């Protein structure tokens, strides 16, 4: 039925033309995520090679990055960059929340701090999974997104501290008891493993690979999502913003084709590397 097809095509074009894009992340936030995941992949690849140094692939990775000496160098380099990004983030929170007293940083619907609604959302989500209730509606950050954020936050502190304690062990030994020097490696390794397993399985699926987002949620790369998506995914935020009459202020540009394509390449590569590392980790972990 050529007529019908043409019609539907035209319809689609029209709807695409009408489609508006809502800004979710600023450029700085997207860059922050890019720095986070590139350094994380670097840290994971080199860290896993160290953690499972007896496996064949670990030696392959060591060789691949320029020898066993380079492994530690790359690990430390990524760590320093990531630490810098973390400090910049802390500074931003401090400036926005404490100095400018911006609302919604430490509490409220736009805050990363968990609240009662998150508990209700989690409960409601489980009910919906089991077909016992309606699909809950989420605000700016859903509970699993907050968990991701705080997991990284806690991970940064724990892995970062234990990592620097090993790097500068004689210095840290001035304040820490002897056994702590043993403990930091255990903590660093286990927490790192948790971060890797979590990001490469749970975060990947929750955010990118589940049917509603498959194969990738582009919003963290382009910064915008279609109004339709915004409405269905973050219904509460949509209602709140629209109710306050601020939706117009949130409308952004349709992402450029090059940005979408570039993001796809980078994003798929990251997911592919992550999943490969996940397989290697699991195989090495269960062989241990």
């Amino acid at each position, binding site marked *: 039925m050529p007529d019908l097809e043409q019609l539907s095509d035209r319809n689609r074009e029209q709807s695409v033309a009408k489609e508006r894009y809502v800004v979710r992340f600023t450029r700085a936030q997207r860059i922050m995520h890019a720095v986070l995941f590139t350094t994380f992949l670097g840290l994971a690849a080199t860290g896993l*090679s*160290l*953690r499972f*140094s*007896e496996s064949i692939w*670990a*030696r392959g990775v*060591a*060789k691949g990055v320029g*020898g*066993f*000496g380079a*492994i*530690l160098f790359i690990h430390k380099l990524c760590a320093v960059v990531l630490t810098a990004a973390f400090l910049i983030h802390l500074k931003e929170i401090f400036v926005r929340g404490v100095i400018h007293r911006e609302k919604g940083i430490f509490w409220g619907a736009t805050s990363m701090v968990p609240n009662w609604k998150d508990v209700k959302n989690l409960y409601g*989500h*489980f009910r*919906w*999974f*089991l*077909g016992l209730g309606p699909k809950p509606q989420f605000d700016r950050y859903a509970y*699993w997104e907050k968990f991701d954020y705080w*997991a990284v936050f806690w991970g940064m502190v724990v892995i970062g501290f234990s990592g620097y304690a*090993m790097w500068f*062990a*004689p*210095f840290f*030994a*001035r304040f*820490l*008891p*002897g*056994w702590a*020097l*043993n*403990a930091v*490696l*255990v*903590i660093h390794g*286990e*927490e790192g*493993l*948790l971060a890797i*397993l*979590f990001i490469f*399985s*749970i975060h990947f*699926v*929750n955010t990118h690979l*589940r*049917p*509603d987002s498959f194969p990738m949620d582009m919003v963290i790369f382009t910064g915008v999502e279609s109004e339709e998506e915004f409405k269905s995914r973050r219904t509460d935020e949509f209602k709140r913003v629209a109710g306050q009459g601020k939706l117009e202020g949130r409308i952004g540009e349709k992402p450029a084709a090059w940005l979408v394509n570039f993001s796809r390449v980078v994003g798929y590569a990251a997911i592919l590397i992550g999943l490969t590392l996940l397989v290697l980790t699991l195989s090495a972990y269960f062989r241990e």
Partner: protein
Amino acid sequence: MAGSGAIPLETAGPAGAGMKTVFSITLALFASALMALGTPAVGQTAADCLACHADSGMQDASGHSISVDGQKFGASIHGSLKCNDCHVGIKEYPHPEKVAPVECKTCHADEASGLGGSVHADKAEHPCTSCHGEAHAIFPKADSRSAVYPLNIPRTCSVCHGNEAMAKKHGLPNVYPLYMDSIHGFALSKEGLLVAANCQSCHGSHHILSHKDPQSPTYKVNIPKTCGSCHAKIADDFEAGAHGTAIAAGNLKAPVCTDCHTAHAILQPTEAAFRMQTTPLCGSCHKDKLSTYKDTFHSQVGSLGGYVQTARCWDCHAAHEVLPASDPRSLINKANLVKTCGACHAGATVRFVQYQPHANARNRKLNPPLYFVRLFMNLLLAGVLAFFAIHTILWLIRSRYDQVKRKSAKGDKHA
């Protein structure tokens, strides 16, 4: 002349060193006399025999060459001897077709008796010439032309011991290539170091015994002494250490030099390849120590292809003077730890060295804080992953279910 009867040949014992000069002069005189006369020689010296045996094509009835290079022989260590000093059966000319075989032991009695009890005792398989070379061209071992000159020994021994088939036949390892690539082999072949250990430095020359023989210098208990004949300081250290005292007390499980360094493929100990191979060796006895070492950063970064700078067993425990921590001389004695760890960790303090390089996080009694840290981390890991695994799997199923439902609803509309 043959018909005129036998000419008595001079028979004498082995010539002394002084005889050599005298002989040379005699030979020179004789040679000039020969040239002056221009007639075939009939006399009392090697030249008499060479009249026939100088013919390079000369063979006996069974086809063996019986020709002698007079010039070479003259220059050899036996050049001052008369032919029948060795070929004792020959008293006159013409001599019988069959003559008694030469017995080196007539003069070299000590060597012969040493050889008698050795692994090379079978005379038919190992005649003296198999090592010393051509019978009429034997040179003193200090002469670079000698087959047993230090720099030539490995090649000489390799005729048999570098031969796969021979190695297989006798159940011996094919050691020649291993030796040649070793630190000793390099010193010998590349640098021409005369003092570098060659085969006989460790195995002896004539009285070579199996390493299973307690008399052998390569018998386990004797190895420290054998290696110590060159590496004296290290042998002293070793003997003072736990392994040395154990071996001396007859504990054959304790390692000696060759257990770590190997017998033939000995590597430069600072080389990555050597540093990589030692840890599992120590661990083959000290199993619990190896497994706890593997949990540490030292091991993790160290196993990635030979990161030579991280501590291996002997960096902390000493390589040779291995002593228990209770011994005040031990590198890992409490009083010495700051210095030992400080060798790599500049700024190491008393607190820093409380670090336990063999801590076992799985052992609650030995390392309670570490045990609980690990337990907490494991519970956290398992808890988070288990919760989200369930959460996400349920979510996936539900989303997929909705998606399929939506699609089929759409399909219904289209149809």
